[in-house]
């Protein structure tokens, strides 16, 4: 069942990648890059893939797996240990991740969540556009419409029922800057009805 899902994921991701990148790139290159990571991670997870997704390395790739790529230092989003992650980025795509063996806390350690961090970005389950539910069905809408409607309704409620009729649940998964803005937003909105996961 899992290998079926993986194959399916591999099949649809090329399309996803081409539409998501902000850079102009050759979609075939993007697809190949994804196949390599898919093959590598699938091998790590002990799963098998069909022969279709593996390709012969060309001369340049034999020297350097991801020509022209850069390595970005970042921090895992899964727990408060704060493990380092080295993310390899090629043509604006996250193609591969590496453990940070020189990070003073994690020292190359990763749990399965950190090792799979890349799928936060590559998962085909990611929402692709704003949505609202209409007559029980999900409908894609533009950002403009979504923000206008959401903010309009919130302002209506504020006017009719008062600022405390809205409850804000913020997050322990955003940056300090964003968490700070969430608290500041509640203040400017005019309520103390704001909380987040530290409470639970």
């Amino acid at each position, binding site marked *: 069942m899992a290998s079926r899902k993986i194959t399916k994921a591999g099949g649809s991701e090329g399309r996803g990648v081409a539409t998501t990148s902000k850079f102009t790139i050759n979609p075939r290159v993007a697809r190949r890059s994804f196949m390599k990571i898919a093959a590598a991670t699938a091998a790590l997870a002990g799963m098998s893939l069909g022969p279709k997704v593996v390709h012969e390395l060309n001369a340049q790739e034999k020297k350097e797996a991801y020509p022209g790529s850069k390595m970005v230092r970042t921090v895992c989003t899964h727990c408060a240990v704060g493990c380092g992650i080295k993310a390899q980025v090629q043509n604006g795509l996250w193609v591969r991740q590496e453990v940070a063996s020189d990070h003073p806390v994690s020292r190359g350690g990763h749990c399965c969540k950190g090792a799979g961090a890349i799928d936060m970005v590559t998962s085909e*389950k*990611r929402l692709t556009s704003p949505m609202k539910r209409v007559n*029980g069905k999900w409908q894609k809408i533009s950002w403009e419409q979504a*923000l206008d409607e959401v903010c309009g309704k919130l302002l209506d409620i504020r006017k009719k029922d008062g*600022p405390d009729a*809205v409850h804000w649940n*913020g997050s322990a998964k955003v940056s*300090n800057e964003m968490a700070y803005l969430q*608290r500041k937003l509640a203040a400017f909105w005019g309520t103390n009805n704001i909380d987040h996961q530290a409470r639970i």
Partner: protein
Amino acid sequence: MAGVANTWGYGAMTNSMNDIRHSKLVFMLGSNAAEAHPVAMQHILYAKEVNNAPLIVVDPRFTKLAAKATDYVRIRPGTDTAFVMGLVNEIVTNGWHDKDFIRKRVAGFPEMCEIAKHYTPEVVEDITGIPASEVKRIAKLLATHRPGTVVWCMGATQHSIGSSNTRALCILQLVLGNMGVSGGGTNIFRGHDNVQGATDMCVLSHSLPAYYGIKDGSWKHWCRVWDVDYEWMKSRFHSKEYMNKKGFTLARWYQGVIQEDKISQYTPIKAVVFWGCASNSQSQYHKLKKALDKLDLVVIIDPFPTMTAAACEKDNVYLLPSSSQYETEGSVTSSSRQIQWRFKVVDPVHDSRDDYWIMGQMVKRFGFHDKFYKNIKKVPDDITRELCKGSLTIGYNGALPERIKKHTLHWETFDVDSLQAKGGPCDGEYYGLPWPCWTETHPGTPILYDISKPVAKGGLPFRARFGTEHTYWNGRKENLLAAPGVYNPGSQVKGGYPEFKDIVPGTNWKTDLSQKTIKVAISRGMAPFGNARARCVCWNFPDQVPVHREPLHSPRPDLIAKYPTYPDKKEQYRVYTRFKSEQKPELVKNFPYVLITGRMVEHMGGGAETRSNKYLAELAPKMYAEISTRLANNLGIRDGDMMWIESPEQGKVKVMARVTDRVDDKTIFMPFHFGGMFMGQDLSGNYPKGHEPYCIGEPANICTNYGYDIVTQIQGTKEGLCQVKKA
């Protein structure tokens, strides 16, 4: 965290993950680090293997961490205070306490002992189920292996007496003299990746950023930082009363909608915004679901739809796809108070937008964009600068964005044992400038309350936060400042002193935005917040000294009369919260098993991210409940069978049985990461098509019981009762 902050000043981990490498003993209660903080294990196991440190694991369940322990102690859920106060009593009775440390740096010790003496090994055995001989043996291990560290997580806090549990653990470390030293401390492992940072920024209904509270002075301080008029800010609120009144919490906001318990605000809740927050991690989830269907508006801002989208069955819901944290940047604070810069890996994918953009768009539509972004031109760096400017209480002011980035970009220069940079551009500084980082040249504070170092080099005494003198219930008066002779090297005052104020007239170290007060204190070798004693007695808490109180839903009705819970709280964070009226001795007859919840290594929180991750979903696709061999056999349940778990609040889940003796015969364990099912019903059709997670399962929190901490209102998910039936 309230319990910790009220003991010695700050509610945070005092040492660091790495510092555990110097521990001679590691005592872990209500933590399953092997699954919840796996990469911290290398430091814990270093202490165990290299220092030959005993690794004591106290847990109702034989966890993966317990498998690594030298000493495993099985405890009845909800009895941690009794056990820990029992250890304190045993240590004091035998004279193993650190008398010099207590005399110089601790307040309320005799009064605390008066209460602790009730918890003899035999009494502890009766309450906790831990044999008296084990209580004595563990106490002796603690006394003979110093410095030892104490680690806890949600297993200690998610109880009606959670804030007593944390204080009891602090008292244990004070009695042993294990505070302010490398290898000691209370190392509270926090959950989400930035829960320390988000707590510091106070995304909380009782405080403005950096723990300033919500009193008039707090608002005036932040209005000065934001450069907005206090009167304008006041006009934003329903009334001034509501500006100073604690709001609803994440644990109980939905009562503002369904109002099964009486609420104390002028309007019910009509709309809720979930911005990077799961709903299925809240207890009594079936009641929360009722609220979702009753609200006028539900807004979900998240990279994934989350279970909230599937649980809403009306047309009242919007999904705004935020990008993941790898598609934006900013600082994050680890459990060890280290601030790292999370650099952006790629631009937002699909049509998702980063949180800052969404915030900007909303604020624009709300009509206060100019005021909100007055000091903020460059995002996120100018936000960091603004929060640094205002967060003087916790010393974020020295952790400017360029310093944080420099640390992250040179993490290889920091030493694993000391966390101090050896050479390189950050030479001498501690990794991530662990707060408080008092000035732009301060190296950070790697260990809180360590008087062996000058304040300018990362040392600190205990914080003077609770006045300078107190008279206890027995009439004894005590000076709360540290004893003569207790000071950081270079201090101009050779003993205790109160906090700094009036250096700039009318301000103190927390409100002087010029930061002159802090700089003067540091230049005199002193801590801006004073030099005081840590408290064993918290006179502002319902229990001044931690005492055992039976869980609201107790499997030991015979103990309720002797250890009753608190009276009901008529208004706790805007809602009536039942204690005594909820403690019904007869409940156990129909709900005979204790229900506890916890983490799996493969998943995180409500699981929206990890169950949408193909690798992790493959590793752990199924929801389950652990049941002991004996109980399973008695109920005719075999491994892999489906069974119903039912709560006293009419919540029920249909889950697969995992028959294992990790749990005892009276306890059921469930992981809390699953969602997408609801009381036997498959909700996968409610997700936007193609965006349902790879694996779904019943949320354990449908069955977690009523019950909240008396101080913080944290939900009591580790001490409920349940019934089990074969499905």
